[in-house]
């Protein structure tokens, strides 16, 4: 991939556009609501996204992710609430959404008959790229997305899923928008293509504000600076992975492979009763034991656990592995908590 040649143009444009606007806050959403008939798709959510952040939108099907993203992009009207981009209200000035946002829709619908180059040139012209620089601009974007050599003359219908996704991302980047919204960009991609996609986002990280919606939790965890979890139209979690762990899954586990008898383990448990212990398995012939210690996932606790383990003389540590809550655990905990709260109210 040709990341090294990344142009300075988006940054320059952003700087010039941001004059007089809020420099740090790219998106502000306040009490946003949207219904489809009786179904509440988005239920009074509020959040903000700083310029340059990569924000992940998570949620089960029907959580309101796509609806929220479409409202942000000015494609749907909200029933209540306010969306502002760089301090300007989208409702009062609908044109700012198309000026600031590059969007890749879910399933990335593309006209199969067109060739990649002509499709991107058409989109660039429609997005207001000056006629004399369209070819240059599109060529540059195609190079960034590794389309120039491999796919520019090919019809979209003949492209693999991975290349189609790249065309979608390239299209979102046309016109140098400041905010890029990608709705389910890694759906249907094989692991190799997912890795390439991740590299693509990494390369553009400092140039754009990204809002990425996905079902693939590991992708969001790997790419995003901040994660928003939606459930049944409500925002149930907002923060970076450390903050979310602290809120929804504050326990960490240390799995120890030890050489020592059962009595020494029991003595350790009695000396440090503040932690939870689980005996996993014992190999009596080899005189080894496996034990899990659950503790609160914070720096002080971790330091205390490690000190206790290595200062204890009655065993020999053969191996250890620390397990922390994954985004999947956090996601399940956050949605379950919201479900429980709703059940209690109901």
């Amino acid at each position, binding site marked *: 991939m040709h990341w090294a040649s990344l142009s300075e143009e988006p940054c320059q444009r952003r700087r010039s556009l941001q004059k007089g606007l809020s420099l740090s806050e790219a998106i502000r959403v306040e009490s946003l609501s949207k219904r489809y008939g009786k179904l509440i798709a988005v239920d009074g959510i509020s959040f903000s996204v700083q310029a340059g952040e990569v924000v992940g939108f998570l949620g089960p099907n029907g959580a309101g992710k796509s609806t929220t993203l479409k409202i942000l992009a000015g494609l749907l009207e909200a029933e209540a609430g306010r969306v502002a981009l760089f301090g300007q209200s989208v409702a009062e000035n609908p044109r700012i959404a198309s000026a600031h946002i590059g969007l890749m829709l879910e399933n990335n619908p593309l*006209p199969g008959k067109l060739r990649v180059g002509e499709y991107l040139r058409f989109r660039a012209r*429609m997005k207001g790229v000056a006629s004399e620089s369209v070819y240059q601009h599109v060529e540059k974007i195609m190079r960034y997305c590794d389309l120039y050599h491999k796919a520019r003359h090919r019809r979209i219908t003949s492209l693999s899923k991975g290349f189609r996704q790249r065309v979608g991302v390239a299209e979102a980047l046309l016109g140098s928008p400041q905010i890029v919204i990608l709705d389910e960009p890694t759906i249907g991609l094989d692991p190799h293509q997912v890795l390439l996609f991740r590299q693509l986002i990494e390369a553009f990280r400092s140039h754009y504000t990204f809002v990425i919606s996905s079902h693939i939790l590991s992708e969001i965890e790997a790419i995003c600076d901040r994660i928003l979890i939606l459930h049944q139209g409500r925002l149930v979690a907002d923060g970076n992975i450390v903050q979310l762990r602290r809120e929804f899954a504050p326990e960490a586990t240390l799995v120890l492979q030890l050489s020592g008898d059962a009595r020494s383990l029991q003595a350790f448990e009695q000396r440090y009763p503040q932690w939870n212990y689980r005996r996993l398995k014992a190999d009596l012939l080899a005189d080894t034991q496996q034990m899990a210690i659950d503790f609160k996932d914070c720096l002080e606790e971790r330091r205390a656990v490690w000190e206790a383990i290595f200062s204890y003389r009655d065993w020999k540590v053969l191996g250890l592995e620390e397990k922390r809550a994954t985004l999947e655990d956090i996601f399940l905990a956050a949605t379950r908590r919201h479900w429980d709260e709703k059940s209690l109210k109901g």
Partner: protein
Amino acid sequence: MKRFCFLCANEARLLGYSSVSHIGAAAFLFAMGFLFLFLLEEYTRFAQSELLAIAFFKAFWIPSLLIIPAITASLFAERLGDRSFASLRILPIRLSSILLGDWLVAYAYYLSLWAIAMLFPWMAQVLFPEIGRSMPFFPLSCALGGYAFIALSGSFFIAIGLFCSSLLRSSLVSGVLSFAFLLAHFLSGEGLRQLEALRGKSFGPPFLSPDFYNVFLQMEDFCRGIIDTRVIAFYLAGTLFFLFLAHLMLDRHSV
């Protein structure tokens, strides 16, 4: 306006890539050529009461039934089917501009096909000059009148086709639907006449007169230079009406 021009250029490109529109165009030109040769042969054999040009134009409904669905069916239905229409909706351009752009492109394509079909009489005159000397072949006034009616009615037919295309996600079914709509329109004048005959009395107001709806009489009038402004108003209003309906239907399809 600049964006609208880019959009039209893209729609024209897409139409150019559509195999169905090419097959439809080939079928249209073949049908028109065959029809013209058939009429020419008939007119050289026997004396006829009406001009060859009028007879040629009056048969316009047969190729129109082929070409209108072929041009219009894929315009929206195919893109609604593969969801690529949604990618158009996210562009900074109004839905009405997208609709108008598609209508303009399809209309220009339809008129250009008719312009090619109008070359057949000219080619016959060049190839067989002796025929042109013996009878009035294709008078310019008649050709202009006929083409004007083709242009007027064409705008209405294309709007019907676009409406049918905006209803469904299958281009085949929308093509069949627009064929049915057009056939109903072509037969409505004759159908009303039959109903009136069965009823034994006229329907009353002049705008319900079967002759008013008879496209063949309308075409004949235009070829003879008789311009009825009510007909012009009918087709223009019909065009706007079906474009409005198509707009409503497309607006219902969420992004």
